[in-house]
């Protein structure tokens, strides 16, 4: 599903954010991406979102080389991907419903279908009763769950999460992880960037470690930190 092939990213400033990163994730696989801040986690996710283009190397999604996608094709690609942002990126002047509906609206779904899917997604994260509220009136955990609902409402094949449990207590973190597990169980490829060691330790998953832009450790070696 996801295949990094010797990918490097060097910024114009000379900073090398990613060096010769190679790894493969199968469809329906779930993995952690970890490392210190500045190690390249965010850059790697940006590559997957086509927010950045690699300096060298290839990134293949479902066998398709993203380097070959033109700027005009980027929106179509992004519709296959769901992203949970660290700072949740919710629009504060819109209701929870409208926020979650956004990915469907941009794809041109009819209103009835949007209503059905948004409620299903909100039900999935346990926020069906909050659809009319604005993000500011919600707690941090609820905001994060709205972000997750928005990331999965269009049934993406790939789900990316950047520090999804950033400021949440352990109980909320496990709830969110359980949510991710559920998406994985229906065949979604899930990649979670985090430096929350306790979270990683609790889950028996593949862990990829980035250090200074290079992949230093890749395997199911959970724990042991």
């Amino acid at each position, binding site marked *: 599903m996801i295949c990094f092939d010797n990918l490097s990213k060097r910024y114009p400033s000379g900073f090398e954010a990613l060096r010769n990163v190679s790894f493969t994730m199968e469809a329906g696989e779930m993995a952690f991406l970890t490392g210190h801040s500045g190690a390249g986690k965010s850059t790697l996710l940006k590559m997957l*979102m086509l*927010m950045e283009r690699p300096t060298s190397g290839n990134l293949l999604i479902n066998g398709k080389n993203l380097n070959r996608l033109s700027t*005009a094709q980027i*929106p*179509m*690609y*992004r*519709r296959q991907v769901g*992203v949970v942002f660290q700072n949740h*990126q919710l*629009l504060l002047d819109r209701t929870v419903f409208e926020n979650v509906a*956004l*990915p469907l*609206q*941009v*794809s*041109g*779904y*009819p*209103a009835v*279908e949007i209503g059905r899917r948004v409620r299903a997604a909100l039900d999935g994260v346990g926020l069906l009763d909050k659809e009319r509220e604005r993000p500011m009136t919600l707690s941090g955990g609820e905001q994060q769950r709205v972000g997750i609902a*928005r990331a999965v409402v*269009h049934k993406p094949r790939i789900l990316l999460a950047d520090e999804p449990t950033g400021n949440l207590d352990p109980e909320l973190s496990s709830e969110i992880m359980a949510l991710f597990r559920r998406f994985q169980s229906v065949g979604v490829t899930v990649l979670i960037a985090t430096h929350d060691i306790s979270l990683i330790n609790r889950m028996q998953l593949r862990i990829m470690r980035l250090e200074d832009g290079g992949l230093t450790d890749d395997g199911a070696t959970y724990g042991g930190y």
Partner: protein
Amino acid sequence: MAATDKNGRETTPRGASGQNISFAHRWRGYKSHHRATLSDSLTKMLREPMQTLMTVLVIAIALTLPAALYLTVENVKALGSNFESSAQITVYVKRQANSTAIETLAGQLDAMPGVISVSFISAEQALLEFKALSGFGSALRYLEDNPLPAVFLVQPLVTDQASLAQAETIIAGIRELPTVDAVQIDMGWLQRLHSLIEMGQKLVLALGFTLGLGVLLLIGNTIRLSIQSRRDEIIVIKLVGGTNSYVRRPFLYTGLLLGLLGALIASIMLFSCLMWLSSSVETLANLYQSNIVWGLGLMGFLALMLLGATLGSGGAWFAVSRHLRDIEPR
């Protein structure tokens, strides 16, 4: 026989219409999205009523000025066309010309291109008219013979500057004719009127162009500010796979609405001005027995709305294509 449902309507097999349904679905989604975008743009404009009102008023004034000047020019033109009937060429026939020569001349004048009508006043008729009008009737009796020549009144076709020039060649041609003694014309003031009208028309274009450019820039700037204040929203939309045209759409609608509202208010302003002026204009029109064009009319109104819509969406397009490119998720 085709299958029928319980109401007697023909039912189509499902498989064949599957594609159509999905297309109809998509089309409905697209339409409802446009409707939603339009009402969303309107809501956002109404949320800042003063800001919107100011913008719309400036657009309205910028459209009213050239439109008012245009109406003035058109009306002066209508007045002028009334006077054009008075652009007459008086052709004095040589005293010694006999009736055959006069008939020949009548034929020659009639055959000239650009001549609408020719009328003849014989020397006798002229004398009678003069007697009746001048009051010198008794004094004229002492004259041995008629001092007045026969006269042709030639009316050239004069509608604009070009036909005025044509009238000049007609006059030159008449002068060449053997039985013609003298030609008298008074078209100098008509020429002046025509050049004034032409200048007015050019002024309308220049003013219209300048102010139109102003409207374009104003709407562009309004949209630019609106883009900046919705930066976060644009980024999120792009991240969830919104195309550039999706992002552009609400701003284009805002520009379109601003332009249309501006044109509407401009029409109202013009109409109010006309109402205010109407009594004095009617007097003027009666004095000149003129059928004045006056108001914008339906076509003029529609043209103004179209202009507003074009400037509005054009300005928005200009701003959007310049500033949206800079907003990419980083």
